[in-house]
């Protein structure tokens, strides 16, 4: 079932099957759906056996980077005598992305089960779910569900009678985008300023409180129970294009589109059909112009490019962009790309943690140039400056926030240069269909 719209027949609802059903939040109902069977099974398994199943399923991180989950888990050195931690990254702050919110709102027990299995699979007894502070409803739902699960003996000491300790806690963020970066997230849980850490050491060696830690996205962990229940082969079979991308994926669709919302499709789904059939195409009288397909950090592509894309990790890469978090931001022909990109850059300038020079100064400078261009005060040299600045902001900092600001802007100028040039030379962009869009 989709939410808020009805599920489309071409969707493959695995994670989103119970979206919109308030009953699904309750433990008893969830159990009647087969909930916590996978955890029961997992607690009787060796951690490495769970890792192997997840490895075989081909599950990759759904937070943006797409790192193979089972492989990530195998980096945790089991039996080293240290406490291990699992952090569930629910700081979903990427503009355009709102899939984790819905997982937590409607199927909190799916996440708790995934967290508990993940924790056991990496030799951890504690999992922190780091939820962004603005998610007041998901936080309340998660805390209620955790209390239920704890009372029922599903998590805690002797989880499900297994003799093993698996506990899950909610940690609230305080409103910083950068805390979704995994090392900043750990700093935030530790009570420190949410600044990304230098790697190495990698979290699997020294993470939360200096101990071996794995950080997984909400959607990643929520998929794990399904893999254990149905088998790696079942998950792996959900693949229609690149064999390296398997399973179902939630896409959050927003912007100028007839039916915004979350859609779950199998990897490799044709983007064109996704946009026009599932999402209902552009608003009446409009045409799609540009798309940022993986959350605001990935390069923007034209609708012509988008229509060729197969929706998986490799498919988006082929067109110079990324699957990212699956936050599809759609711009129609009434939008001014310079204005949209200036707005996006402003977001990154606001959220830069201020550690690295290139990011702290670069994101703000980029924003000021773009806003000046939008205000009709730009010059052609400004466009060259933006590209040189973007080069300077890419691949040189501790985390990728700086890169994430540069990527949509440079890709946007490359693809919509005429709109920038029109503004600079004092004309309204001919491709912006609605007067006053600026």
């Amino acid at each position, binding site marked *: 079932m989709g939410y808020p719209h009805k599920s489309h027949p071409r969707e493959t609802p695995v994670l989103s099957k119970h979206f919109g059903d308030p009953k699904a939040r309750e433990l008893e109902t969830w159990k009647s759906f087969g909930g916590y069977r996978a955890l029961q099974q997992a607690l009787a398994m060796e951690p490495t056996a769970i890792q192997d199943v997840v490895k075989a399923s081909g599950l990759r991180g759904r937070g943006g980077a797409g790192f193979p989950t089972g492989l990530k888990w195998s980096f945790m050195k089991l039996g080293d005598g240290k406490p291990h931690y699992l952090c569930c990254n629910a700081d979903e702050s990427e503009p355009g992305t709102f899939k984790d919110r819905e997982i937590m709102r409607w199927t909190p027990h799916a996440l708790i089960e995934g967290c508990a299995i993940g924790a056991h699979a990496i030799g951890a007894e504690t999992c922190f779910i780091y939820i962004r502070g603005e998610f007041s409803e998901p936080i309340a739902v998660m805390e209620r569900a955790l209390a239920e699960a704890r009372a029922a003996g599903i998590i805690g000491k002797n989880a499900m009678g297994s003799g093993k300790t698996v506990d899950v806690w909610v940690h609230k963020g305080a409103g*910083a985008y*950068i805390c979704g970066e995994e090392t900043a997230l750990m700093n935030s849980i530790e009570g420190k*300023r949410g600044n990304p850490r*230098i790697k190495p050491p990698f979290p699997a060696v020294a993470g939360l409180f200096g101990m071996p830690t794995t950080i997984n996205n909400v959607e990643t962990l929520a998929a794990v129970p399904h893999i254990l229940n149905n088998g790696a082969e079942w998950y792996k079979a959900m693949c229609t294009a690149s064999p390296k991308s398997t399973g179902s994926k939630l896409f959050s669709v927003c912007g100028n589109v007839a039916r915004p919302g979350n859609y779950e499709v199998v990897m490799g789904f044709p983007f064109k059909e996704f946009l026009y059939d599932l999402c209902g195409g552009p608003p009446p009288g409009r045409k799609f112009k540009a798309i940022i397909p993986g959350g605001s950090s990935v390069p923007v592509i034209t609708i012509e490019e988008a229509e060729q894309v197969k929706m998986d990790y490799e498919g988006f890469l082929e067109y110079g962009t990324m699957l990212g978090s699956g936050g599809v931001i759609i711009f129609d022909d009434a939008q001014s790309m310079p204005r949209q990109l200036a707005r996006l850059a402003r977001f990154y*300038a*606001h*959220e*830069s*943690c*201020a*550690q*690295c*020079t*290139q990011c*702290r*100064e*670069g*994101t*703000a*400078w980029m924003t*000021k*140039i773009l806003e*000046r261009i939008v205000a009709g005060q730009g010059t052609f*040299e*400004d466009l060259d*400056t933006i590209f040189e600045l973007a*080069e*300077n902001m890419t*691949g*040189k*900092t*501790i985390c990728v926030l700086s890169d994430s600001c540069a990527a949509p802007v440079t890709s946007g100028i490359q693809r919509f240069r005429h709109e920038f040039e029109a503004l600079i030379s004092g004309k309204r962009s001919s491709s912006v269909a609605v007067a006053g869009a600026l």
Partner: protein
Amino acid sequence: MTAPMVNLTIEGRAVAVPAGTTILEAAKVAGVLVPHYCYHPGLPVAGVCRMCLVEVEKMPKLAPSCATTVGEGQVVHVYSEKALEARKGVLELLLINHPLDCPICDQSGECELQDYTFAEGRADSRYREPKRFNPVEDFGGDVMYVPNRCILCTRCVRFMDDLAHDEALCVQERGDRASIGKATEKDLTHPWAANVVDLCPVGALLSKDFLNKARAWELDRTASVCPNCAQGCNTIVETRDNVVMRFKPRTNTEVNQYFLCDEGRLDYRWLNRADRATQPMIDGVLADWEEAIHAAARLAKGATVRLVANASLSNEALYLLKRAFGPGVITVRTGAEAPLPGASDLALRADRAANATGAEWMGYRRVSAPLEGLGAGDVLVIADHDLTGVSAEAVSRAKAVIVIGTQVPAAVTAPNVVLPIANMAEEEGTFTNLRGRVQRFLQAKAAPGMARPSWFVLADLATQLGQPAVHFTAGAVFDALAKAEGAFAGLSYDTVALKGKLAAGATAGARA
């Protein structure tokens, strides 16, 4: 256990360094300075300024050399086009919000932003937007903050957190709005807080004491030792026109690392006092040096001498005084000890004197009432002691008073002989710190009037008193002292050099 050695090539120079060394430190060994801001050898690595990016062959991205450890066979390029381009970019970005007010900035001339921009930066800026502005803030203590000049390297924050263990500073706000802020209800009142001024690579943290006093390039710099407590922190005495303008810490990882306490660094004005003894005198009348030495010798010869010495006199002066008169007494002003907790064995010491250890090794007695039991027929020799707390009446019990010092103490109303000497900034010599480390200080300025170095005056005087001490340099006096005094055995002025040497008399458990 020593770490195995790793071989690598930096800018074409082969070096071998212990495993775990950073590329930046290895480059120093190779004689290559990688430009950097946030890195400081005395602080934890932050890796945030991104200035020290270097190209390492077979690495996909430029590596922050402060946070990247060496690998066997690595080939590092510090001055490749890619690395230079990256640093140029950092410099441009650091300058977009920087006020370029070098002509009125105290840091000018010793500013790393200025230096590296000159060396590697762009000649112009492409920045056309308004600059960010934040007002100047008093951080408390001796420190003021000029946020517009700040490059957010966080050295100051890390010093307060990790060395001072006083989390008084933090980065506030995000993005280009960020600046250094004081934590709620905190001030920079930690006794070592002023080190943040030295650590600041730009003109963002300034000393209120030094504010607008001198330009860095006008200052003459002399290696010295802080005379204000028994720790013996290594310093640089900075002078202009024969006036001491400030003390700065001089790196010595065995003693003070890179640091100097606030009390020590700010207590330098006495070296510039104008009310000095500048002329040899006999009974209130100007005399020439030879007469005055002879007069002093005549008074002391055969008499019972009470020698009251300043515990901050050099080893050389104390040795020659002992030869002339036998060991005397010292008084030591004390105060609260103030450690720098993040550094090992580093504190503003309770003994606020530079050389009590050296004096005591030579047999001087530490007393609280230096004139107690002074006999009516005694000759009182005051060796640069201010006689604080001693009355003129007590002094007048002495048959005669010889003052060998920078000043005539107030309690001495009618000195029989005055022999003016140089203060510690005006002569060279050695101190022995509380751990028994002998350290040299050099002459930073000229002595006033006819005042002479203490060792020079005292060598003459000892000779006149039948203790031949024919020395032509402070070093010769020290070498004689090392032969005569067991606690100093085996040392020489040359081997003590500028980093000091632990003496044989050092107590067990002292630092190597």
